[in-house]
């Protein structure tokens, strides 16, 4: 056991059982999976991505590249979870990944022996031949061998949520800088959100043996966090990672609400937040970077800062005999702290020659680690001393520090490039990379505790000033002001063996050298050629080292070499959180008519039309096929009377003294001349001359119209009308509003419709209610609107009632229709009825058709301007050989037509070059006893009576057709007027 007898922010009185690879262990509250495993003496935690090298934990934070685990069982299993941030809960089941059959004995480690063939770019070189082997042989093998964790393959049953938050000041990171910033901004009265990815506020204050204001730093942090939680204007969000910075002060963040609980008790597992902040203070700290040397990836080799975190925060000694390898003063701290805790430090190896650390252990300056050994974990290391001699040192843990990189990633999310600072050998955020964001403390390259406190306070004061809030002067705590000297040192030169840069993607110094040799020298090329920095840690550990190696090779400086662009997310975000609310139906809107429940109760088969659910057909007793129902319903309308809910058509109420003029400008035909109490069919164009939509508009009063649109175009037409009214002709006194859902509208169609209504309303004869008439009527005391319009071609009416009466009206109408030998009909019959009449839907008005193409040129008024008029007269649109709408009927032995078939001449080969058009709508017409269709045919209006073929190559159908008028049934329109 490696647990130090006392200390740490863990509750030693409580033991939490968990398993790792089937083995039982215990942890304490406050432990991460990584700290618990280290405490239990487990160093080997994973296998590397490509070479299956044994790997241990490298860090103590979210930047961890090695210790990735599968957590949970069954559908709950989550792969690639970083053990360093994963809190242990009671009964947690953790498994290592990417190994076979076990972590200790991994057969795939054979890859490591093959490494000479698997270097950077091996994909492009090694497996080129024979070509067909790629998909069949090589790729499956490589995919099997390389990889991370496994998905459960089952639906995720966890609940995720999305939420919005707004604040004056968003503070990212709860270390000394963030705490001081949040406290200052909070005192000044700003609405503050403090977000920290950790489960305890404090950042490095929890990881160091240091004092703030005379107290242990972790206690000071806890007290500050408690004070912040008491402020009503401050929201402290722990376990919350700000993952992305976007424009407009919007930030993405993931809050892990229940990942750390054995039982979420209904709470969402994670919440994806969008936080909108007027000001942002980036206090995300810094991440330590490793030094590359041969076999620097052996379990037990860790970052020096992480070794201190495990010691101070978790009470865990990462080893019994620890060596430290550093290029900076901060590494010394690790040696000092471990000695103070009674841990043996076998060596302090500093790359610098001009330093003399006063530490009670063997010290080597101007020295470097040139190799390590040990089975499944480090046992010895080789040190090349300043005189060139190589010395063996025993150690079961090697703490490495190559300096610190400010966690500036968010400042790159809007394309900002960082600035190089030679004195700290690191990139720092360039000011104003994100509007209204200030980086402070270690994230800004200021590594002293006091400096962080001061910068946090100053940034908050600046925000308060800008927000015109109260200026405050909080007490600046007493704290350590040491910055710690560093001398850039990236990799140990003149060594044999592989020195790892990117632990997660198995990229070594040699791979960078290879990329350089093969001329992939720009950082973006190097990254993609070697895959460096492309793993889930996004190169947090590796980027700097690789840049430095490339800079050396090209003879450029590091700032000249540049850095790759950081993009969101800062740490991986689960798809479940991003897709919160989207599983299954999610929040997708659905629209139901007022007769929906009635239709379902009647056994109607429902169909989705846009967002609407509509009755498709109403099966009668004995009917087993939709066609039986549909044919019966069509006949019913043609011979008796049918009832259909048509409420889904868009209804737009248009009022104002200029309403008539307005409609003249949006429709191709005249509406200002329409008499009150009459309805007119209209066509609406886009400004490019193509048909936008059609429908009827009724004039209910001098200044009052009600427009109907097709179901699908209701929204776009409303938007278009608003555009015309607000953007083109604001001088017109006209207002409009959608009333689609306020009115239920039901069609009563068929020769017996007048008889039906006579009993319900009274006289609706041609004399009192002529074709295309409209007016107010009373039905059972309810004020209703009656329209004499027909989408079936029969004598027909539509009745509109306030939506609350829709269902009652439907029941009454269907009862009366059934008494007359009719009944309800659905969408299938409605479609057949309109095809028989050649009426349009958006299958015909497909955005490519002009009024002339549809054979309706007579509707283009010459007396006025209207939207699309000028453009509709463009030369190409007047070509007589454009595809024009016609009807088609089979005349050969094949009697079927399929929608979407292409039209070709009788003797032409059915290829694209010979295409004469396509079939838009098709149905079996019980009225005409045969298939009929609507089609676009080149020059079709002049080809009536000719034959043509409708060919469907996918469904293997070739039908000889006659081109006919699209008005198949009652072309003179006598029935509707009857």
């Amino acid at each position, binding site marked *: 056991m490696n647990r130090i007898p006392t200390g740490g922010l863990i509750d030693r009185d409580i033991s939490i059982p968990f398993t790792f690879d089937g083995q039982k262990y215990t942890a304490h509250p406050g432990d991460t999976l990584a700290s618990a495993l280290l405490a239990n003496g487990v160093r080997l935690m994973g296998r590397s991505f490509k070479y299956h090298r044994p790997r241990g934990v490298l860090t103590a934070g979210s930047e961890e590249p090695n210790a990735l685990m599968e957590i949970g069982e069954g559908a709950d299993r989550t792969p690639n979870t970083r053990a360093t941030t994963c809190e242990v809960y009671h009964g947690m089941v953790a498994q290592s990944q990417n190994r076979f059959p076990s972590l200790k004995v991994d057969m795939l480690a054979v890859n490591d022996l093959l490494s000479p063939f698997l270097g950077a770019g091996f994909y492009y070189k090694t497996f080129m031949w024979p070509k067909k082997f790629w998909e069949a042989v090589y790729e499956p093998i490589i995919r099997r061998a390389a990889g991370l964790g496994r998905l459960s393959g089952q639906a995720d049953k966890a609940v995720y949520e999305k939420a919005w938050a707004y604040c004056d000041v968003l503070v990212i990171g709860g270390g000394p800088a963030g705490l001081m910033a949040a406290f200052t901004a909070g005192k000044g009265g700003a609405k503050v959100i403090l977000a920290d990815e950790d489960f305890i506020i404090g950042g490095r204050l929890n990881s160091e043996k240091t004092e703030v204001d005379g107290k242990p730093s972790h206690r000071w942090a806890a007290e500050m966090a408690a004070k912040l939680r008491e402020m009503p204007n401050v929201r402290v969000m722990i376990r919350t990672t700000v993952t992305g910075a976007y424009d407009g002060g*919007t930030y993405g963040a993931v809050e892990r609400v229940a990942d750390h609980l054995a039982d979420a008790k209904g709470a969402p597992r994670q919440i994806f937040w969008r936080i909108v902040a007027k000001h942002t203070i980036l206090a995300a700290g810094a991440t330590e970077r490793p030094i590359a040397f041969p076999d620097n990836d052996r379990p037990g080799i860790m970052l020096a800062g992480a070794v201190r975190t495990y010691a101070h925060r978790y009470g865990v000694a990462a080893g019994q005999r620890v060596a430290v390898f550093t290029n900076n003063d901060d590494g010394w701290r690790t040696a000092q702290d471990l000695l103070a805790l009674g841990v043996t430090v076998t060596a302090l190896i500093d790359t610098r020659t001009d330093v003399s650390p006063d530490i009670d252990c063997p010290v080597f300056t101007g020295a470097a680690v040139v190799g390590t050994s040990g089975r499944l974990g480090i046992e010895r290391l080789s040190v090349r001393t300043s005189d060139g001699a190589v010395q063996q040192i025993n150690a079961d843990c090697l703490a490495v520090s190559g300096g610190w990189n400010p966690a500036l990633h968010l400042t790159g999310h809007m394309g900002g490039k960082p600035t190089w600072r030679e004195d700290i050998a690191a990139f720092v955020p360039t000011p104003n990379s994100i509007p209204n964001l200030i980086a402070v403390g270690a994230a800004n390259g200021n590594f002293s505790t006091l400096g962080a406190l001061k910068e946090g306070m100053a940034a908050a004061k600046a925000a308060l000033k800008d927000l015109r809030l109260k200026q405050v002067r909080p007490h600046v705590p007493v704290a350590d002001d040491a910055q710690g000297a560093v001398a850039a040192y990236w990799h140990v030169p003149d060594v044999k063996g592989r020195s790892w840069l990117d632990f997660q993607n198995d990229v070594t110094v040699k791979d960078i050298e290879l990329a350089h040799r093969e001329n992939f020298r720009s950082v973006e090329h190097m990254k993609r050629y070697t895959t460096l920095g492309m793993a889930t840690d996004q190169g947090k550990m590796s980027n700097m080292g690789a840049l430095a190696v490339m800079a050396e090779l090209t003879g450029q400086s590091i700032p000249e070499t540049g850095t790759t662009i950081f993009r969101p997310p800062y740490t991986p975000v689960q798809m479940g959180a991003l897709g919160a609310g989207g599983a299954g139906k999610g929040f997708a809107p659905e629209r139901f008519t007022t007769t929906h429940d009635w239709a379902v109760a009647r056994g109607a088969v429902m169909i989705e039309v846009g967002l609407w659910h509509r009755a498709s057909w109403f099966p009668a007793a004995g009917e087993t096929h939709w066609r039986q129902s549909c044919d019966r319903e069509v006949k019913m309308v043609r011979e008796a009377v049918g009832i259909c809910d048509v409420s889904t058509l868009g209804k737009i109420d248009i009022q104002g003294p200029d309403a008539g003029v307005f409609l003249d400008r949006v429709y191709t035909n005249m509406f200002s001349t329409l008499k009150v109490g009459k309805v007119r069919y209209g066509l609406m164009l886009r400004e490019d001359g193509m048909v936008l939509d059609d429908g009827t508009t009724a004039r209910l009063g001098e200044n009052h119209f009600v427009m109907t649109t097709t179901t699908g175009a209701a929204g776009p037409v409303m938007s278009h009308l608003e555009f015309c009214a*607000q953007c083109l002709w604001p001088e017109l006194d006209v207002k409009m509003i959608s009333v689609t859902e306020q009115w239920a509208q039901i069609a009563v169609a068929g020769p017996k419709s007048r008889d039906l209504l006579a009993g319900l309303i009274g006289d609706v004869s041609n004399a009192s209610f002529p074709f295309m008439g409209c007016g107010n009527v009373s039905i059972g005391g309810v004020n209703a609107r009656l329209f004499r319009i027909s989408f079936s071609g029969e004598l027909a009416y539509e009745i509109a009632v306030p939506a609350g009466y829709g269902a009652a009206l439907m029941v009454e109408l269907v009862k009366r229709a059934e008494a007359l030998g009719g009944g309800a009909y659905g969408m299938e019959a409605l479609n057949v009825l309109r095809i028989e009449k050649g009426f349009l839907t958006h299958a015909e008005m497909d955005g490519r058709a002009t009024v002339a193409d549809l054979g309706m040129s007579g509707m283009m008024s010459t007396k006025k301007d209207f939207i699309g008029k000028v453009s509709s007269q463009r030369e190409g649109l007047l070509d007589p050989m454009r595809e024009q709408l016609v009807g088609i009927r089979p005349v050969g032995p094949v009697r079927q037509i399929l929608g979407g078939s292409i039209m070709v001449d009788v003797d032409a080969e059915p290829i694209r070059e010979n295409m004469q058009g396509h079939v838009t709508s098709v149905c079996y017409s019980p009225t005409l006893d045969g298939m009929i269709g609507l089609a676009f045919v080149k020059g079709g209006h002049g080809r009536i009576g000719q034959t043509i073929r409708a060919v469907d190559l996918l469904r293997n159908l070739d039908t000889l057709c006659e081109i006919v008028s699209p008005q198949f049934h009652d072309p003179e329109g006598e029935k509707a007027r009857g």
Partner: protein
Amino acid sequence: MRIHCPHCGERDHREFEYLGSAKLLERPEGGDAAAFHDYVFQRKNPTGENAELWQHVMGCSAWLHVVRNVTTHEIIAVKLARDVKEAAR
């Protein structure tokens, strides 16, 4: 992006729908085909600031004249399209 609707206040861009260049306000009078060709089809493709039309579809339905930096997505000014159109007369 955050767009400040003159009626409703500052809202996330998800509440709005984008149409295109504010040039669409300048519909030609009369029947000149060349003028309509220019109006319907010709657009500048600037980097930096661009005047655009957006509609607050999930709010008040107002059409807005939005000056936006298309490189940084900074919203520089928002007015009612109606007001801009009337001011131009």
